[in-house]
């Protein structure tokens, strides 16, 4: 069967020969025009005058478009709050598109865009979290709060109380292929748009609005992206609308791509956060009560910030049971690029906040950080998270006993004079399975997964070796850290959890497959093709993978929230099964067999003791007028969610993983490197282990990059100073760990997902948190103080933390 095989990426051969086409590689008609935006040079103010005469007169310029020239909607927002394609009077960040230049070449358009003379009435810019808080500049009326129990009361009664605050920097996507779109005018005013987008339906919708057309007059096609990471969920709207408007106005094909600098200056990035926390723990380190204040810098427009901030709240627990909890989230509006989706979608920031608290508790109480985490874990799933136990079975007794035993052994550790229980024993008598948002965690596998990773990574011996190394070295200090990941799978906007597919079987037995998911390198197309091949019992090379096309499958959701193969795999499976059922009924009739006994395997159709070639059955079915085309549809079951109250079941299931990272720092310079990373990650029953491991390796490095080398710097005027790879440091090949061991946890999803697999796009990014924790651990080895390391842990941040540890 094709499922579960480690097949290469479907386009691998095209990629290694340079034949794979991205948007900017599509051959364009003669006379194609090229676009560039003229952008704002201030962060906040009013446009007093805009003199574009020199732009219009520049060589090669065909057309210049301002907001007044837009015939229909001037809106590229993915949210209910509008976001203009071109500024209308007010400007809100440095880099905001003001006007559009349409010219004979990319270079001519860019050069002309520089010739504008814009006069502004500058206003004070709100740039930082504190400035936004002081000015009350925010989205939504006030902070959103999710709470359960009495956090303040529990903290007041706790044995130990800690508080702190941590800054978490944003992150530039740096998809290697910049944003791009190509609009081709068709007859009768119709428009076809090729876009490097994770969300073709959104492109179709926004372009239709910009042209004053119904959606059926616009078709969007996406064959592939050169990386997306969330940065192409909404940020491609502007280019697609601009190209379509220009194509309508000129009657010529219009292409737009951002130069790398423009891309970094114009488009949104990962939200940066500050998280303030206060936690009360018992003598054994168990959390009794916790309060988080998540301050989220959203930039100037709403974009996807509300669901991002929601997801940060939904991951504030990470893997830990919080008996009394309050999470307060502020969505702050600033005069900077509009922060947007980025792999993890707020989840990483929320989870980082929790891991930071764990790090702080372990340091303050002098506890073993792994034992501390395990003591706070959610209770193990009945039946190990793979299948539900019969009702009435005692819940997680063994796990509770294990935890109890650990606590007993820890009681001898310094600073832990008291065992848990006492004041909060009624709380502890309850199963420790309820999240802060009132969803039961039914599939918690981290107890076993942790145990295995500690063994395979040789954690204990290495932790001792690190301590011995640190005792003998004054300048270099090593650190080692373990961190777990529990990540919720589903869009929190419930209606987005749907997908469609279209499958044709041609008379020669070849299969044509289409679905609403987009390919950005993650291997979605191959995984889904493996599903289709498995349904028909044929080899995967019989399945043709085709570009995502709003004309084939309508009303699609973004390929986001790690949902690509979960949703589209199921939709394709449904479409294939419709055709398969028709074929089974047809051959069964000929053989007087029960259609349910017909099997599709090894390229054959097995019926009544015979094995018929698949293509022969297809041919025969065609001759007998059986329909060989079907659509498929899937919607995720079980989810219900009230985002205002913060109650319900937002996630179908959780994906898990854990990592151990070892680092070394130079305490004189703050320089640091990752020496080794060991990862054990849960993909359920993997659809393609090679592709999944690739996602894990890439996710870890991207996550570690976010928290170490990748630093975004804005100056006091709101100008992004890190707008090129020369100043913004993406992990290079030499930055990845010297030793990098990645393994898949072997276990089926307990929920009925496609072949019991689990989503893998986002969760592994958060394994990178272990690299940051290891750096914190190394800083702490420099002295007795709390290093209070911030993120990203650049050499400067490490040096500051070392200084604090020594103070």
């Amino acid at each position: 069967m094709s499922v579960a095989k480690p097949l290469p990426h479907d386009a691998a051969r095209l990629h290694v020969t340079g034949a794979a086409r991205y948007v900017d590689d599509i051959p364009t008609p003669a006379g194609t025009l090229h676009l560039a935006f003229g952008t704002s040079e201030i962060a906040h103010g009013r446009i007093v005058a805009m003199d574009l005469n020199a732009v219009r007169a520049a060589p090669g310029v065909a057309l210049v478009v301002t907001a007044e020239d837009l015939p229909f909607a001037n809106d590229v927002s993915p949210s209910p709050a509008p976001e203009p394609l071109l500024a209308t009077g007010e400007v809100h960040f440095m880099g905001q598109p003001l006007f559009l230049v349409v010219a004979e070449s990319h270079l001519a358009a860019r050069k002309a865009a520089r010739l504008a003379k814009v006069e502004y009435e500058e206003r004070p810019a709100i740039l930082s979290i504190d400035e936004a808080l002081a000015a009350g500049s925010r989205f939504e009326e006030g902070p959103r709060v999710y709470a359960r129990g009495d956090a303040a009361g529990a903290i007041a009664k706790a044995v130990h109380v800690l508080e702190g605050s941590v800054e978490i920097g944003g992150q530039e996507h740096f998809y290697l292929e910049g944003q791009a779109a190509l609009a081709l005018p068709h007859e009768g005013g119709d428009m076809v748009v090729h876009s490097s987008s994770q969300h073709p339906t959104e492109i179709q919708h926004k372009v239709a609005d910009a042209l004053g057309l119904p959606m059926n007059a616009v078709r969007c096609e996406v064959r592939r992206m050169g990386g997306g990471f969330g940065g192409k969920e909404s940020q491609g709207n502007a280019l697609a609308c601009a190209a379509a408007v220009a194509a309508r106005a000129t009657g010529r094909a219009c292409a737009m791509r951002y130069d790398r600098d423009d891309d970094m200056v114009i488009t949104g990035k990962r939200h940066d956060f500050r998280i303030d926390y206060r936690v009360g723990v018992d003598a054994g380190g168990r959390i009794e009560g916790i309060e988080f204040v998540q301050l989220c810098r959203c930039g100037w427009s709403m974009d996807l910030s509300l669901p991002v901030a929601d997801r940060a709240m939904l991951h504030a627990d990470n893997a830990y049971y919080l008996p009394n909890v309050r999470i307060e989230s502020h969505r702050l509006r600033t005069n900077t690029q509009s922060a947007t989706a980025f792999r993890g979608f707020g989840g990483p920031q929320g989870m980082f906040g929790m891991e930071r608290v764990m790090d702080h508790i372990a340091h303050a109480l002098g506890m073993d950080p792994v034992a501390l985490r395990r003591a706070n874990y959610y209770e193990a799933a009945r039946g190990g998270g793979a299948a539900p136990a019969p009702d009435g079975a005692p819940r997680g007794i063994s796990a509770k006993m294990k935890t109890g035993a650990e606590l007993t052994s820890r009681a001898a550790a310094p600073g832990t004079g008291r065992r848990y229980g006492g004041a909060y024993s009624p709380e502890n008598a309850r199963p420790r399975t309820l999240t802060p948002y009132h969803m039961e965690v039914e599939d918690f596998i981290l107890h076993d997964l942790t145990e295995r990773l500690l063994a395979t990574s040789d954690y204990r011996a290495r932790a001792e070796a690190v301590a011995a190394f640190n005792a003998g070295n004054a300048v270099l200090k090593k650190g080692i850290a373990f961190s777990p990941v529990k990540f919720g799978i589903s869009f929190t906007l419930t209606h987005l959890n749907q997908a469609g597919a279209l499958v044709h079987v041609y008379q020669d037995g070849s299969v044509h497959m289409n679905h609403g998911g987009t390919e950005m390198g993650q291997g979605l197309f191959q995984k889904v093709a493996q599903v289709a091949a498995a349904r028909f019992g044929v080899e995967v090379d019989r399945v043709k993978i085709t570009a995502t096309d709003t004309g084939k499958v309508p009303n699609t959701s973004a390929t986001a929230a790690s949902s690509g193969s979960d949703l589209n795999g199921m939709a394709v499976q449904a479409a294939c099964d419709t055709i398969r059922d028709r074929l089974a009924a047809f051959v069964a009739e000929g053989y007087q067999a029960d259609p349910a006994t017909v099997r599709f395997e090894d390229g054959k159709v097995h019926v009544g003791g015979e094995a018929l070639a698949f293509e022969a059955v297809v041919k025969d079915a065609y001759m007998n007028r059986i329909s060989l085309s079907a659509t498929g549809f899937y919607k995720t079951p079980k989810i219900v969610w009230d985002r205002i109250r913060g109650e319900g079941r937002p996630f179908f299931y959780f994906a898990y993983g854990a990592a151990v990272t070892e680092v070394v720092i130079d305490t004189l310079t703050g320089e640091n490197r990752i020496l080794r990373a060991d990862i054990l990650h849960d993909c359920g029953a993997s659809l393609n282990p090679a592709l999944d491991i690739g996602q894990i390796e890439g996710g870890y490095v991207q996550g570690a990059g976010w928290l170490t080398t990748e630093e975004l710097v804005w100056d006091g005027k709101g100008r992004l100073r890190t707008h090129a790879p020369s100043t913004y440091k993406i992990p290079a090949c030499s930055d990845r760990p010297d030793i990098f061991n990645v393994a898949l946890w072997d276990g089926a999803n307990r929920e009925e997902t496609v072949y019991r697999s689990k989503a893998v796009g986002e969760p592994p990014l958060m394994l990178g948190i272990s690299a940051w924790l290891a750096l914190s651990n190394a800083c702490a080895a420099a002295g007795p103080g709390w290093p209070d390391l911030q993120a990203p842990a650049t050499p400067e941040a490490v040096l500051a933390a070392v200084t604090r540890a020594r103070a």
Partner: protein
Amino acid sequence: MADVAMNVNGEAVRAELPDNTLLVDFLRETLGLTGTHVGCETSQCGACVVHLDGEAIKSCSVLAASVAGRAVTTIEGLADGDALHPMQAAFNAHHGLQCGFCTPGMIMAGVDMVRRYRASGEALDEAAIRHELEGNICRCTGYHNIVRAIDAAAKAM
């Protein structure tokens, strides 16, 4: 304007180009060889690596006119008909790519480093491969499989 003639992937090509035409634009736009990609335009990312007289260069920072009369090999010129170059085969077999945007540049850089190390007699070990890839960014893979692919190809070349 400049009259530029050179050899690209074994064929003589000639064109009238504005003086400031970059080699990468000549390859992509004039010749339609879009396998060479542009990731940064500022010689940082390595997506645009091609071979000039057999040596790796970043074609985003070279004027076409400045390499007139010389031989350029792009990713499209690496395979021998249908038979992949060992470096291409290794990237395919070892999952050395995801979105594939960095791949042509990685492969061209990989071939160049194997040749150079062979010529100098130095060992191209894992540490050397990583060091050599300093000028090639991949945002997707975490580099692990890229290093494996180059290592495997070095043995097969």
